[in-house]
């Protein structure tokens, strides 16, 4: 118990200091954009002569700024869709369960990558891919919550008294779902970070002005022999961030 307390404190401190450092580096670091070929592939610099540590710090801000609106949209879409979980019609439930179960088990990442062949504009495909990867998991989670809620006595009595589904959803279920979302937020952020980094790592997204974590990891892989520090400076903060979010999520859960 004591050990987990230390780890949780470490996680929170890491997240706080890392993101403060990232924001400071992004706001004041003109160095990030500086390409200096004289220092290319020297220790701490990438093949374009950019400082790897500053790049990694800035990539953290870029990744977080991208995943926050995406995560919020996913939650909004899922909350809207979860209203359909209240429909009791047997045929509808069969199709609904079959669809989400299949979407949950299908290799969403491969499907998302294949999307780029049909929708080449990454401004559309990227959010669609994230939605495609996250939505089945969120729907399953919310459906589980709704099923547990529906077993509560006061909800059963409300249904038997003929309360309309929309009223039940708005008054009783939605607040509970929002509460549950708050509880899984650290895990959701870590999942979104993994999805975003994976998709940019395989080159699904057009490169922006500044690199994201996935692009830096991809660059690090290409220069693994000549400049292993590119991978190191990117992988270590990403690992610590994911580890911190997972630990906090575990702590909240237990």
């Amino acid at each position, binding site marked *: 118990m004591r050990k987990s307390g230390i780890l949780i404190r470490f996680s929170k401190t890491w997240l706080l200091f890392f993101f403060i450092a990232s924001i400071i580096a992004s706001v004041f670091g003109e160095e990030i954009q500086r390409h200096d070929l004289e220092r290319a592939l020297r220790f701490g610099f990438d093949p374009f002569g950019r400082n790897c540590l500053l790049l990694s710090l800035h990539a953290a801000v870029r990744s977080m700024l991208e995943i926050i609106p995406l995560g919020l949209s996913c939650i909004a879409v899922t909350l809207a869709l979860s209203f359909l979980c209240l429909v009791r019609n047997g045929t509808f439930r069969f199709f609904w369960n079959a669809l989400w179960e299949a979407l*949950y*088990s299908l290799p969403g990442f*491969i499907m998302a*990558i294949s999307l*780029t062949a*049909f929708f080449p504009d990454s401004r559309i495909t990227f959010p669609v891919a994230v939605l495609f990867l996250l939505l089945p998991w969120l729907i399953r989670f919310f459906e589980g919550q709704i099923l547990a809620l529906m077993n509560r006595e006061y909800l059963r009595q409300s249904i038997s008294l003929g309360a309309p589904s929309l009223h039940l959803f708005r008054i009783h279920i939605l607040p509970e779902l929002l509460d549950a979302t708050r509880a899984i937020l650290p895990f959701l952020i870590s999942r979104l970070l993994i999805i975003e980094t994976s998709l940019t*790592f*395989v080159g699904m997204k057009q490169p922006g002005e500044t690199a994201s974590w996935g692009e830096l990891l991809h660059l690090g892989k290409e220069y693994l022999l000549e400049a292993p520090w590119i991978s190191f400076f990117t992988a270590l903060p990403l690992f610590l961030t*994911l580890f911190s979010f*997972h630990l906090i999520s575990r702590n909240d859960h237990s």
Partner: protein
Amino acid sequence: MKFLLRLSLVFSLVWIVARGAIYLLPGDPADYLIQESLIRISDDKSIAEIHRKMDLEKPPLQRILSFPSGNSLFSDAPVKPMIRDAFLHSAMLAALTLVFSFGMTFVFLYLGFRSERWENFWNAVSILLASIPVFISGPIILFVFSLQLDLFPATGHPLLPAICLALYLTGFWFRSLSGKIRKYLPVSAVAGARSRGVGEFRVFLFYLIAPCSGGLIRFFSGQIGNLLNGSLIVELIFKWNGLGLLLADAVAKRDYPVIESGLITVSLITLLSLQAGIWLENRLEPK
């Protein structure tokens, strides 16, 4: 009957999306291909050739309902053997990954089952492993074991990609399964068996794992998609010629016949494994 209906319903949906998505491309797909890809042809005859290879001379409905065309747009090689070879490579990687991951998960579960202190320790280890996705562990493992220690070749060997993928999956599997087992623990006969002096391993295997084996099989059958997802990245890192690398390559080249066939194959494998898991669960734990 429900099993077949569910399978055919979802598979037909995937089929329609895979075969019909081509019509979502702007303008004529052949023109788009010539502009976007490396095909060095532009005369009418070649456009007609692309139409023929992509079954675009057929009406949309007929195209959607028919099987994907037989040859790759680029190499002109038949798609079927390409998919078969890639599938065999992926199956080998998946089998190795499953062995490692399955083994590690069960060792962690068993060690965690013996005492609460150890359970906390293995929980921490699993969180650590789940925080090292394959795009982090892949280059590190490649750098250490292949480039520095020279123990394995950098490409063309399934062991390193399998270890890399297994480490990540073990983290998630242990977390999910320990939760499932913990829920089952109070209602099982574990305490009775322990008091009768049955060995810890036997208790773990026969009084805890065996009774919830249906749920475990269902869980693992649903993880095939996850395995394929992870294998795409490790195949890209270690250049392992599996389905993931084939599809990623086809997407980069816009080789639609390969993409369509690959998508259909991958979906079929996943859906069949999921349905087999559901069927086995119902057989083992009839409700």
